[in-house]
């Protein structure tokens, strides 16, 4: 029994301060991404979420270049990107791709510049890896409170506009007719999205941040007919994938000599999220087949086939 325990939890796992920070930051980020992600998937704004990840990359790399806390860069520029998207017209279906594409292009250009300058000036080693693919084990302890505050702010924003957001997700016209300030609700949601993507970029890296935003939410939406349960299931999937990813990455240190050190946490989290989505899709399809009305087979008289 003890052997199994030590095989799962490598010695020192629970006492490691880096693990403590990773579990705390990862847990908060996972919950925020799951809640915001459910609305992102329902509103069909996954592309906007991905683009905000690239905007966060520009912010994170810019922060590293000038010596700021990366969280400020990730979240700050993400919020600016969300505001620009809203101004261009992300709330209107036809303008959505245009708004997202323009912001995405500008963000990738800025990221390329900032990362080039950061790596060539030699101010920060591993900046590219840190910004694009994340390094949750290197987050400073003091960041936990910042991440928790920002995550709480995003969740409070979603809670505040929960019902109008849900109604405007179903039909902006109906919501507007009921007196919902659709634009204000949309901006609040976009800011919550920017914060969640920024935090996810901190944990998983900008490139993989969308996985934590979209994957658990998409899996949860396949498993339930109730929005409240979808939020709960998405949170459970997201937190478990994140914490298990941290554990597997920690354990991978002793898996072999092909790699030098630990395998990236972000890889494990994304792999677990994708696996969960595939399993939930299979379960959803099986349930749909089981509950679909049975059709009687029509017997074709012999000799009349074809």
């Amino acid at each position, binding site marked *: 029994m003890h052997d199994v325990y030590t095989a799962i939890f490598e010695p020192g796992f629970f006492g490691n301060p880096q693990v403590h920070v990773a579990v705390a930051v990862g847990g908060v980020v996972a919950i925020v991404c799951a809640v915001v992600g459910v609305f992102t998937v329902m509103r069909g704004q996954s592309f906007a979420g991905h683009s905000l990840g690239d905007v966060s990359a520009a912010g994170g790399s810019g922060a590293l270049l000038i010596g700021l806390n990366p969280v400020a860069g990730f979240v700050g520029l993400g919020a600016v990107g969300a505001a620009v998207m809203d101004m261009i017209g992300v709330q209107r279906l036809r303008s959505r791709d245009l708004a997202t594409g323009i912001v995405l292009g500008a963000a990738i250009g800025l990221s390329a510049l900032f990362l080039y300058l950061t790596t060539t000036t030699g101010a920060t080693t591993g900046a590219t890896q840190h910004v694009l693919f994340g390094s949750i084990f290197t987050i400073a302890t003091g960041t936990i409170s910042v991440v928790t505050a920002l995550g709480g702010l995003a969740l409070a924003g979603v809670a505040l506009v929960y019902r109008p957001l849900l109604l405007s997700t179903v039909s902006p016209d109906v919501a507007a*007719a009921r007196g919902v300030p659709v634009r204000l609700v949309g901006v609040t949601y976009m800011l919550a999205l920017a914060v969640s993507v920024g935090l996810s970029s901190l944990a998983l890296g900008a490139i993989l941040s969308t996985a934590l935003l979209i994957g658990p939410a998409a899996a949860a939406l396949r498993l339930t007919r109730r*929005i409240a349960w979808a939020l709960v299931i998405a949170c459970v999937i997201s937190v478990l994938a994140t914490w298990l990813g941290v554990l597997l990455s920690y354990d991978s240190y002793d898996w072999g000599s092909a790699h030098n050190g630990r395998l990236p946490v972000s890889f494990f989290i994304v792999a677990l999220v994708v696996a969960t989505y595939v399993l939930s899709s299979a379960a959803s399809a099986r349930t749909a087949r089981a509950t679909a009305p049975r059709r009687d087979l029509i017997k074709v008289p012999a000799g009349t086939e074809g």
Partner: protein
Amino acid sequence: MSRRRDFDARAVTASPAAVFSGSSAVADVGADTPEILRVENVGVALAGRRILDQVSFAVRAGEFTGLIGPNGAGKTTLLRVILGLHRPTDGSVTIGAQPRSPRSQPVGYVPQKVLLDPDMPIRARDLVALGLDGNRFGLRLPSPKRAQAVREMLHAVDAERFADARVGTLSGGEQQRVLIAHALISRPRLLLLDEPLANLDLRSSQEIIQLLARIAREQQIAILLSAHEMNPLLPVMNRVVYVAGGRAASGPVDEIVTTEVLSRLYGHRVDVLNVHGRVLVVAGQDDDHDGAAQPTEAG
């Protein structure tokens, strides 16, 4: 004096009025019934183009009014003006004697297109419940009174049997029932429906029309329903607002749907035909041209 061109003498009913209001399903709305909606001299210009001009009409409590006109006539724009979502260039809208604004007294609304994603985890009863408090900020706690109100409304529109299904997986007719329940649960005095019969099969259309007529009659709700086809509405319609060429004419169906009135609205000759109890509005012919009339629309 109305002038109708009979397409087939054997098919034409003896009394034109009987074609329009021969059914007992039409609610009896007296002149003393309170006025719910008044549209006065409303004009709308979009991008320099005049969409609506001098549109005036009124709808009373319990009255079923059809907003009829060809595609692109400005029916949706007019509904958006009534809802307070679009500011008219001129004229005014009053609901229950109060000027209309987005936050004034509730108006039920069923929009033209609601693309409900089958994967969206929203049950029919959830969507109806959002009609009750979907405009309020903050989270809500479970409430037995709220659940009871939703159950009663689902029962009223005969939607109990699919109340727990994802709303995106329902048929077009079932979705319309849910959307109507959503619009009615806030107990509006006026219900606006934008082309609710589009994409519905004949049976579903008839069921929805009968449902709406019953609701108008029983709950004294004024209904304004837009459609480009008036025939399905003839058995239940008290009044018609016919929109064409940017202008509108309103009144009892047999006074408005006439060759003279519609020709004035369209700005060119159209003929109104009665065929087997159905009304056809067709492009008229100039007197110096031969050839068959080209149907423009059924109603």
